[in-house]
């Protein structure tokens, strides 16, 4: 009895690890945008929803090959991210922080409603389901393993881009000091636009991975949106490494908590843990205690 129990717990832990990779990718783009532009996109998960619909529309409705649909969707959401910055965030850059949060909240409603107008409220799926993988007595979904792998590569590439390229250095510099960098010849509005496009592209990539696991519907963003930005806050807004760690911590709470209780309670435990941690380390998990 004991050994069976342990193997299912182990399965939950490993599934949590796989989920952690995906959550880390979800929060990476949002974190990047916040770190550089200092605005939280509450609607970030809705960009992912748009990406999922783009893939469904291209692949299932118009017969575009899946890989091409993925590439086009990533490009489309990247463009959407840039447009989001240009038309919506830029005008409120100097406004009160609450207005910045709210305007992106408005985009959340808008994108949800537009998706409803365009595609209705039905659940859509692209009809591609990867098989399960059995290791010993444990079973894992292949799509989760793929998602984990792709997320790990994407995170590594983003990290190298930020640390090894000229543009990446400019992005990091601007996030450290917004007033000095323009004097050093960095054009902040270009950096902002590029970062937003990158954030959008990462959302598009996340959409590719999610569409393999979940059906898409207009409110799907709400099921993982709050989670995404809580992970960013838990890791310390703008702290990419912290967000990475926080994603795995959160995923374990959800997976193991969901194993002992129901899935909602896994989320509840994760959220309560989040609130407690905020009191203990307000600047994020990896911050030094004040």
């Amino acid at each position, binding site marked *: 009895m004991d050994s069976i129990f342990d193997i299912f717990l182990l399965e939950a832990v490993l599934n949590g690890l796989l989920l952690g990779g995906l959550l880390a990718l979800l929060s990476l783009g949002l974190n990047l945008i916040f770190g550089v532009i200092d605005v939280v996109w509450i609607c970030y998960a809705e960009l992912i929803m748009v990406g999922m619909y783009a893939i469904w529309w291209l692949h299932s409705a118009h017969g575009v090959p899946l890989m091409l649909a993925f590439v086009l969707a990533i490009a489309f959401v990247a463009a959407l991210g840039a447009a989001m910055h240009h038309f919506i965030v830029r005008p*409120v850059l100097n406004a009160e*922080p609450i207005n910045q949060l709210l305007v992106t909240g408005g985009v959340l409603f808008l994108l949800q409603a537009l998706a409803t107008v365009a595609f209705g409220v039905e659940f859509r799926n692209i009809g591609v389901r990867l098989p399960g993988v059995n290791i010993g007595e444990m079973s894992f979904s292949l799509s989760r393993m793929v998602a984990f792998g792709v997320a790990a590569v994407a995170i590594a590439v983003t990290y190298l881009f930020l640390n090894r390229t000229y543009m990446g250095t400019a992005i990091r510099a601007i996030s450290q000091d917004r007033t000095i960098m323009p004097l050093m010849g960095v054009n902040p509005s270009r950096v902002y636009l590029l970062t937003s496009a990158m954030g959008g592209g990462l959302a598009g990539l996340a959409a590719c991975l999610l569409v393999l696991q979940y059906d898409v519907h207009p409110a799907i963003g709400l099921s993982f949106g709050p989670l995404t930005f809580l992970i960013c806050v838990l890791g310390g*807004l703008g702290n990419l490494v912290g967000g990475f760690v926080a994603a795995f911590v959160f995923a374990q709470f959800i997976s193991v908590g969901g194993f002992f209780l129901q899935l909602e309670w896994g989320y509840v435990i994760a959220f309560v843990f989040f*609130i407690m941690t905020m009191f203990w380390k307000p600047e994020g998990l990896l911050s030094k205690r004040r």
Partner: protein
Amino acid sequence: MRNLALVLLALAFAIPFTGVGNYPLHLMVMALLWSFIYTSWSIMGRLGLVSFGHGAFLGIGAYTVVMLWNLFGISPWIGTIVAIAITLVVAFLIGYPCFRFKIVGHYFALVTLALSEVTRLIIVGMRDITGGSLGVTPKSALSDGATWSLSAMQFSSKFVWFYLMLGCWLVALYVWHRVDRGMNRLALEAISEEEDAAASIGINVTRAKLSVTLLSATMTCIGGVLYAQYQSYVNPETVSGIGISLQMVFGVIAGGMFVMLGPTVGAIFLLVLSEGLRVLIGNDILGIDTTIYGLLLILFIIFMPKGILGAFLEKMRGGKGLGSSRI
């Protein structure tokens, strides 16, 4: 000004007797209810405590009362007291550490947002007794053609609700006014400008913030009770979670956060907008009304950051600051 207000108030009291239909009366009840809730939110929101978690208090109010009534037959009046007690505990547990450890700005907004999501998930998670996402209806106490039951807080006549909501709204305005005139406002305004400096001149930051938070949360909880009893139906999505919490903030911003009647104007505006779009466009194309709604909200925040009433008053006064203006 005062006379004008009294005349308008007298007119408001007379409205149900002018023979308006059920639908306009329903709209007015809803406008008063949301005005009450938005005003409750703005009591702390305008002082720099931007909470995205008021959906939690609304949900606690609505669900505590309905659950106690349905499961144990406890009168909603006693249920309200229980709900307020729970709200005070929750608001304290969140507020005290937040204020003690100086969690402000984005972080405060997101912590409170987590709170409202937790509330929604707990309601959904307890689906065996709460009905989960399907929502729940309070058991009717109106048998044998009775039109009202005071102990069950159920009234089939909209008249009663109109006066109840009107009374609550007026109390909320009075509270807003008292807070506005009180020392606490000056303290909190100083805090929202520069917290450390305020603390250095002897302001007890934690206490000042906590008192206004508990007040605002309690009033929002009462709003949740009224909503549940008036609608006779609650659903976790409509009384808790991210959607309603954002809508509250939107309403206040759209009306004008820094003037007494701003939240009221915002509530009426949002109600007229959503009902108007629903009636004008109908249900032929699903989602088109919310598309326009979302678009307008974005435009509003970009082009009219001070809200309808705020911008109007500013224009009338020739562009003077609104920090301490009153209406």
